[in-house]
C-alpha cells in the first residue's frame, strides 16, 4: 500500500480510472509532457497517449465547453483549470451548459465531466493564485462540488467524481498537496459523494470545515481537548449538495457550532451551513453560530496572506467564545 501525498493520490485516482475505463480523458493547460504545474497529471500522457491526455490551447472557456462536447459523446473528460483564479472564464459554460444538459434535454444527453482546480491560499503564490470561491459554484444547480482534505479522501472522492454521471467541480486544497503522506490503497474504491466525514467525535461543540483549513481545525480541536473542550470535527467534503443530516445530528448533540473556511465571509458556504442550522436545527442551539473565515477583501498578496487566513488561535478563541456563551 503506497504512501501518498494528496497530489499523488489525485494522480493515482486518474491513472487508475484511465486504465479501467478507456472513455476517461484528461485535458487542460500543461497536463501533457509537463504533467501539470503541480504534477497532478504526471505520467498520464506517457501512459495513455496524446489523444487521451490533451494539452489544450490556453483557453478556459474552450476547455470547459469542449469537455461538454466530449461528455455528450460518451466520454468522461477530466478537465484541469490550472488555478481556481482562472476558472471564471469557464463559468459560463459550466452554469449555462454543463449543469443543465441533462435537465434541458429531459435526460437525452448528460454531462459526466470533472472540472479540477487547485484552490486556496498559503503557498506564497503570485496574484490570482490563492483564492477560494467555492461558494460561487455551490450555488449552481445541477453540479456537485467536492473538496478533499486528505490523500485518502482525495483518492476516493476523485474516483467517485469521475464515475459520477453528472458534472463535478473538484477543488484541490493546494496548501496541503504535499503536507502529509498516508497509506492509500490504489484499489479503485471510491468514497461516497454527498456525505460529510466526521473526523473526530466530540460532544461539546461542532467544528465544521473543508479543504486545507481542516489542518488548523484539527489542531484547534487538539488544543481544545487539552483544555477540556471536546470538539466534534466534520469535514464537509461535499460542498454541494450538503449532507444536512450529519450536520444537524451533530448540532443536536453538541448545541454549538463554529464553521471554519478561508473564503471571504459574506455569502460563503459557511453562510449556507449556518442557515441550514438556523432553519432546521435552531432548537438545539445553545450559542450563536460563529464563522471563522477570510475577510470580505481580496486575498492579499503573500506578504499579508497569513494575516488573512484563519489561524488555529482564531478558531480556538471562537470555540471558547461559543462555549462560554
Amino acid at each position, binding site marked *: 500500500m503506497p504512501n501518498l501525498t494528496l497530489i499523488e493520490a489525485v494522480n493515482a485516482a486518474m491513472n487508475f480510472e484511465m486504465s479501467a475505463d478507456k472513455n476517461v480523458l484528461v485535458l487542460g493547460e500543461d497536463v501533457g509532457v509537463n504533467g501539470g504545474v503541480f504534477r497532478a497529471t504526471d505520467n498520464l500522457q506517457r501512459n495513455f497517449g496524446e489523444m487521451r491526455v490533451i494539452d489544450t490551447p490556453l483557453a478556459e472557456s474552450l476547455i470547459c465547453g469542449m469537455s461538454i462536447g466530449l461528455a*455528450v459523446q460518451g466520454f468522461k473528460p477530466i478537465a484541469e483549470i490550472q488555478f481556481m483564479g482562472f476558472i471564471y472564464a469557464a463559468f459560463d459554460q459550466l452554469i449555462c451548459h454543463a449543469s443543465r444538459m441533462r435537465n434541458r*434535454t429531459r435526460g437525452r444527453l448528460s454531462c459526466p465531466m470533472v472540472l479540477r482546480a487547485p484552490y486556496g491560499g498559503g503557498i506564497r503564490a503570485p496574484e490570482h493564485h490563492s483564492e477560494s470561491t467555492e461558494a460561487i459554484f455551490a450555488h449552481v444547480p445541477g453540479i456537485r462540488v467536492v473538496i478533499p482534505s486528505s490523500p485518502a479522501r482525495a483518492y476516493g472522492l476523485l474516483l467517485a467524481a469521475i464515475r459520477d454521471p453528472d458534472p463535478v467541480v473538484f477543488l484541490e486544497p493546494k496548501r496541503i498537496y504535499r503536507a502529509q503522506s498516508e497509506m492509500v490503497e490504489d484499489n479503485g474504491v471510491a468514497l461516497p459523494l454527498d456525505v460529510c466525514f466526521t473526523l473526530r467525535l466530540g460532544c461539546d461543540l461542532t467544528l465544521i470545515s473543508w479543504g486545507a483549513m481542516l489542518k488548523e481545525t484539527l489542531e484547534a480541536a487538539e488544543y481544545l481537548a487539552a483544555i477540556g473542550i471536546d470538539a466534534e470535527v466534520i469535514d464537509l467534503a461535499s460542498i454541494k449538495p450538503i449532507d444536512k*443530516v450529519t450536520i444537524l445530528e451533530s448540532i443536536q448533540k453538541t448545541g454549538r457550532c463554529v464553521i471554519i473556511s478561508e473564503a471571504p465571509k459574506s455569502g460563503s458556504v459557511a453562510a449556507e451551513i449556518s442557515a441550514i442550522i438556523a432553519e432546521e436545527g435552531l432548537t438545539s442551539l445553545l450559542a450563536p453560530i460563529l464563522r471563522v473565515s477570510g475577510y470580505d477583501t481580496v486575498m492579499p498578496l503573500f506578504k499579508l496572506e497569513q494575516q488573512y487566513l484563519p489561524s488555529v488561535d482564531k478558531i480556538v478563541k471562537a470555540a471558547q467564545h461559543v462555549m462560554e456563551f
Partner: protein
Amino acid sequence: MKTIATFSVKYSQSLNPAAELNTSLEQLATAGIHSSDLLDFYQSMLLIRTFDTKAIALQRTGRLGTYPSCLGQEAISTAIGKTMHAEDVFIPGYRDAATLICRGTTMQQILLYWGGDERGMNFTGNNQDLPYNVPIASQCCHSIGIAYAFKLRREPRVAVVVCGDGGTSEGDFYESLNAAGTWQLPVVFVVINNQWAISVPRSKQSGCTTLAQKAIAGGFSGEQVDGNDIIGCHLQLTKAIENARAGNGPHLIEAITYRLSDHTTADDASRYRDADDLQQAWREEPLLRLRNLLLNHQLISESQLEAIQSQCNEEVEACVAEYLAYPPQPNSAIFEYMYQQMPCGLKQQLSELETQR
C-alpha cells in the same frame, strides 16, 4: 520586409435572385443535385416557411412564447439539414428550426420548446444533436468536443455548428476556431450572416470586410456563399463536410442572407431598420428564386405548387394540433432531470412543492 503568408476569401453563387443558374441542370445533376433534389429542397423550404408563419400566429394569440423567426434564411438552414449525414452531429443556435426539422426533430418538439416546455429538446430522430442554444456562440466550444470525439474514435463523422453574424464577436467563437485548426478537427462552422444582431447591423459588429476571413485566425480556410441560394449552399457545404469527413480538417462558410422578420416576436425591427433595405432584401429571398427556377425549367406546374402548399399547411396544422393537445408536465418535472439520482435535499424540496401548493 518579406511576405510570409497570403490568404484569400472567395464568394460563390449558383442561383441568383433573378433565378438564373450559373450552370445547366445537367451539370448540376453530375454534381449530385438532381431535379428531384430541387423539388425536395423547395418542399422543405416551403414547409419551414409555413411552419414559421404559423408559429408567429400562435405567439400572437398567446399560445406560444417568444419565437425567433427564420424568415428569409430557409435556404442555408435547409441546405445544412440536407447535406449532413444522419450520423453527423448538428450543433444549433436558436434560429435553426429548418435544419432541425430536416434532421428529424418534429415540429411539435420545436413548438413545445418555444412554448416553454423542456420536452421540446428531447429530440427523437436526431438524438445526438445538441439542443437549442441561446447563449450566443457558446455552442461552438461544444462542437470542438464533439469533433474531437469523432477524431479520437476514428469515426467518419462531422460536426456542423452554426452561429450568427453577431456570434462571431464572442470569445467562444474564436477559441473554437483556434482549437479546430490546432487539432485539424472534422468540424464545419457555418456563420449565418443575416446582417443583423437584433438591432446591430453587420457593419457595427466588425470592421472585417468578410466574416469568412475570421477562419484565418484559426489557421484554416473560410469562404462566402450566397446564403439565399440553396444550390450554391448545398454544393459548398458538401465540399466542406466531405473534406472534413475525409480528415482534411475544418472549414468556415459565411452564408450571406437577410433576416426578413423581426429579431423575435418580442422585437420591433422598424425601430432601427430601414424599410427600403427590407424591400431590397425581399427581392433576394430564397424561396421565390427556387420557385421561379422550377417553373422556368418546367420542373413543376402552378397547380403542383399549390398542392405542395396545401400539403405543407396540412402537415403544419396536424403538428400544431398535437402540440396544443400535449399533456402538461407534472410539477415534479422541475426536479427530475437535475441529476441522474435525485439528492436528498432536492427530494425534500420536491415534497415541499407537492404538499405546499
